[in-house]
């Protein structure tokens, strides 16, 4: 019996039973008859010319079926390169081949693929493939790579700077001319990678009778992977089906199309056997996209009241060796900097630089945390210079709710001006500050210092464009047995879509979420799809599920009204029936009368399907089903404030997070429990980025961090209890008032951790203009003060 609205409640997740009882199905769980295993021969050098490849010894090994390099590939794969998802006029793009042709441009670039009976044999054979490389000078650091005399990341490049894009709002020169208060900072930020628990993986199977390619891939959206494969192999739309089963984490980099996918598909077609490739962790460190380095040289002009007049500077971004996402990542960083503040004049030059490293593409937060760090470091600088409370400086600069919708003026990566649709930024910060008892903090801090303890506090505010277009569809269908199915191109990686999308549909059908089957990530289930990234699924797919469910419910009512000879508006959907709705104020919902006057969804679906030989009644469209592709006019903007209290051990440099409050507004909550899970995971990411995660390379761009002993993710012991405050400002841009939540824990949270460490160390005048910040670095910054009692 389902009567309450499911939207806004926290039912247990539909996903959990399968996942917790070992019934989850990930790519590596899939075993097809006659399937071979593949392993990739990858470049050991960051930049080199391939002089020769000799696979004869590997091919001679028993159990090895093929060693395929560039020249063995089908013609279309030799001619074409991987697709550029988002072109930009300022970009000189560099795209990769499925297997390197003559030049390798990062350590880990696929050069050949070995196909064998199993992965053990394939790895044995890898070591027998002899490749003669001529080493070339490599670009490791993007700032050094931007210099005219730097070696080139690709031998034929004129410059490693492959895009220079200006973001400009207002009269920046005037802003800086008219005030003496100008503060300059040079900020270095490094974000590592995604490091999902399940590494990448793909299985390709080619049916020579049908001429059809079936691909299972651990991804964030199979439709774009299908498009890329269509382009690369020149097949017709119905010849390729891409399926993404359960996914153990995506966080951005699983939304990319990778060379391995094309190479494995080619292997399956060439060999006539299904071929599986599962990325191992060492490959994951060198061949899965990362986010990495940004250098920001910025200055801010403020008036005598600490109000921002202008902000200008240069962002130098490490793009890696190829440009699969164009300049999307640094562009988002640039568009995020103004955040919740009024910035009348803004001028940032973005320089995207090719380096000989694996490609940098969005990781959860997608360049936004870096933008927030820049703005919030400047805010803290202003506070220090004006001897104002950091919270007060922010208050003076907030966009007020009365100014909504607010046009920031910057062009976002969707090509439109950033226009905040709704939100109450001052209230969000106040809520976070109250929760952590900010006003009493300075007293706590002074008391701690008397005991030789150094605690500090930091604030981070962020506004995040979510629900990015163009659309994510949903097909809602009632089968002739009454079962309800929702199919969408959205592709969950842990976001609980099967639960939240079912909640939205359940409210229209008057059923429990258990009665709704949600199918995701299969190009055969719905024609068009984009995928799950950019905190876009609840907004796009959620709205589509709503619209399609509304239509199906209306259709069911229309048919039932005719059959029952009642008015449509007197009917309601409940527990699998269309029945007479209880009269307002009447004695309970399901009266005896209502129970007698009703039709099951199964009966209605049979009627809607039509009878052989009979015309459809009133020319109705067949089927109790509807497909909707909701498309919003622009992104909807979520916001959040993170306030963090830390303690620093000045003798060891250890940082302990004492409290972490995150107040945020992601519009109307479909499922508070799911949102909180998303926030907590996002915060863990931010803690890693602020304190632990570093992907080190040497000066020849050789990656040094290639396992989890060297690359440190935060452990459970490093993530404190997270205090979450929800604010709900309905977005006016979609029917459910939703905004995205998948990244809201990450985006505002690196900045306040850094700020809190700096605040804790303020007696020593330590300034922190980098992330992550490690204990060793803190000790270096402290100098003799770190000697503590041993001095």
């Amino acid at each position: 019996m389902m009567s309450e609205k499911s939207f806004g409640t926290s039912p247990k997740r539909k996903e959990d039973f399968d996942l917790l009882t070992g019934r989850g199905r990930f790519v590596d769980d899939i075993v097809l008859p006659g399937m071979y295993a593949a392993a990739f021969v990858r470049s050991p050098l960051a930049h080199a010319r391939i002089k020769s490849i000799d696979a004869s010894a590997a091919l001679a090994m028993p159990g090895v079926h093929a060693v395929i390099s560039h020249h063995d590939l089908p013609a279309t794969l030799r001619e074409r390169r991987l697709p550029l998802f988002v072109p930009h006029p300022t970009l000189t793009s560099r795209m990769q081949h499925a297997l390197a042709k003559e030049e390798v441009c990062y350590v880990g670039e696929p050069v050949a693929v070995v196909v064998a009976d199993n992965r053990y044999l394939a790895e044995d054979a890898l070591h027998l493939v002899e490749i003669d490389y001529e080493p070339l000078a490599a670009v490791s650091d993007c700032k050094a790579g931007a210099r005219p005399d730097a070696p080139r990341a690709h031998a034929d490049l004129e410059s490693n700077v492959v895009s220079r894009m200006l973001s400009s709002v207002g009269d920046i020169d005037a802003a800086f001319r008219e005030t003496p208060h100008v503060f300059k900072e040079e900020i270095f930020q490094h974000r590592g990678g995604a490091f999902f628990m399940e590494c990448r993986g793909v299985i390709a199977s080619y049916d020579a009778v049908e001429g059809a390619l079936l691909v299972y891939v651990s991804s964030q959206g199979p439709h774009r992977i299908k498009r890329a494969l269509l382009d690369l192999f020149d097949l017709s739309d119905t010849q390729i089906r891409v399926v993404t089963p359960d996914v153990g984490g995506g966080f951005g980099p699983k939304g990319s199309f990778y060379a391995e996918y094309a190479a494995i598909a080619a292997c399956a077609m060439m060999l006539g056997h299904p071929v599986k490739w599962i990325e191992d962790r060492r490959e994951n460190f060198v061949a899965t996209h990362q986010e990495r380095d940004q250098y920001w040289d910025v200055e801010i002009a403020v008036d005598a009241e600490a109000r921002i007049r202008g902000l200008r500077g240069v962002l130098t971004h490490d793009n890696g060796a190829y440009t699969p996402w164009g300049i999307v990542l640094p562009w988002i960083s640039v568009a995020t900097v103004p955040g919740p503040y009024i910035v009348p004049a803004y001028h940032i030059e973005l320089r995207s630089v090719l380096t000989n490293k694996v490609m940098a593409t969005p990781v959860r937060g997608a360049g936004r945390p870096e933008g927030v760090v820049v703005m919030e470091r400047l805010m803290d600088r202003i506070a220090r210079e004006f001897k104002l409370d950091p919270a007060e400086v922010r208050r003076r600069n907030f966009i007020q709710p009365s100014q909504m919708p607010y046009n920031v003026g910057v062009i976002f990566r969707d090509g439109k001006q950033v226009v905040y649709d709704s939100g109450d930024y001052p209230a969000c910060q106040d809520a976070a500050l109250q929760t952590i008892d900010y006003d009493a903090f300075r007293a706590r801090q002074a008391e701690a210092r008397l005991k030789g303890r150094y605690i500090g506090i930091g604030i981070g505010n962020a506004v995040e464009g979510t629900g990015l277009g163009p659309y994510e569809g949903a097909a809602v269908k009632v089968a002739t047995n009454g079962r309800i199915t929702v199919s969408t191109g959205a592709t969950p990686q842990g976001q609980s879509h099967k639960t939240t999308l079912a909640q939205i549909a359940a409210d229209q059908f008057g059923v429990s979420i258990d009665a709704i089957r949600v199918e995701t990530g299969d190009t055969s289930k719905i024609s068009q799809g984009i995928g799950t990234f950019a905190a876009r699924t609840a907004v796009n797919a959620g709205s589509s599920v709503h619209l399609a469910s509304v239509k199906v419910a209306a259709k069911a009512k229309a048919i039932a009204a005719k059959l029952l000879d009642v008015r449509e508006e007197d009917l309601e959907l409940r527990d699998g029936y269309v029945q007479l709705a209880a009269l307002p104020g009447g004695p309970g919902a399901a009266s005896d009368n209502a129970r007698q006057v009703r039709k099951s969804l199964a009966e209605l679906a049979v009627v809607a399907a039509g009878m052989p030989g009979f015309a459809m009644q009133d020319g109705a469209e067949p089927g109790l089903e509807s497909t909707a592709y909701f498309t919003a006019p622009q992104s909807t903007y979520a916001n959040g404030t993170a306030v963090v209290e830390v303690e620093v051990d000045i003798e060891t440099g250890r940082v302990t997070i004492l409290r972490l409050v995150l107040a945020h507004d992601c519009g109307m909550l479909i499922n508070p429990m799911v949102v909180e899970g998303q926030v907590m995971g996002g915060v863990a990411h931010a803690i890693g980025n602020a304190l632990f995660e570093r992907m080190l390379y040497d000066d020849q761009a050789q990656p040094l961090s290639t396992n989890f002993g060297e690359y440190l993710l935060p452990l459970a012991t490093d993530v404190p209890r997270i205090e979450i405050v929800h604010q709900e400002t309905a977005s006016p841009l979609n029917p459910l008032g939703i905004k995205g939540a998948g990244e809201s824990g990450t985006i505002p949270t690196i900045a306040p951790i850094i700020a809190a460490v700096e605040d804790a160390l303020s007696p020593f005048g330590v300034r922190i203009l980098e992330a992550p910040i490690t204990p060793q670095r803190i000790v270096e910054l402290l100098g003799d003060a770190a000697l503590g009692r041993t001095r």
Partner: protein
Amino acid sequence: MKPARFTYHDPAAIADVLALLAEHEDSRLLAGGQSLMPMMNFRFVQPAHLIDLNRVAELGYIRADAGTLAFGAMTRQRQIQRDANVQQACPIMIEALSHVGHRQTRARGTIGGSISHFDPSAELCNMAALHDAQFVLARKGNQRTLGFDQFARGYLTTAIEPGEMLQEIRLQRWAKPYGFAFEEFAMRHGDFAICAVSVLLTLTGSGAIDAIAIAVSGVAPTPQRLRGFEAAARGQMPGHALCREAALQAAAIEAMSDAYTTAAYRTHLARVLTYRALEKAVARFKSQDMT
């Protein structure tokens, strides 16, 4: 990350192990597998023969004699942690073990495996140095016993020769009462320490240092005892000046560096952790909170 081809042996008795070791020159012993298995998966090591010790029950024991605490090489770290004798006789071992990996890895990891691997940061190697351990090395038809300084050869290197197995580790027990402390800095709980410092001491009736041992690990390729300081400290009153002197001695150890950690930071940690460890051991002795 699949190992190269190898032949697997799973003997059940020490004699069989030693026979296999004598027969197969290119072999490795598998204890808890917490280091060796990843190294094989990375193909950093590719032994032709893998001799699994996990069925050799006679290698798993803890024996408390008058002056020593002896561990069979296959004794699990978790087993040591939970052993009443060790808890009673050697509480610093329990404190050190709490830093060794995580409960899951300790359930597999063994004392012999850790000491044979001889990671410079390993807590159990530090304990061996602190307790002037003796190492019983066995080969077919032969056995020898080495002291710590003969056993420790360098970075990840011990005196164990091809064909030999570490069979037993004997720690020299200190008679109670004594003060102790184990101070470690690792990036995250359970990580390899960047630096760890252990202290054992007794004080005279007047409160002066009677006996003291300090071991510093993670800084140099092998755990280092502060022998010079230990000798000079006898008879001195513990306090800020003595703690600082110990700290300076620890800071004089020539430190390693790598891509992540500078020599300067290791030296710095040796300095501050030595101060803290000595201070804590003295306080514990004085409070008799040494159980």
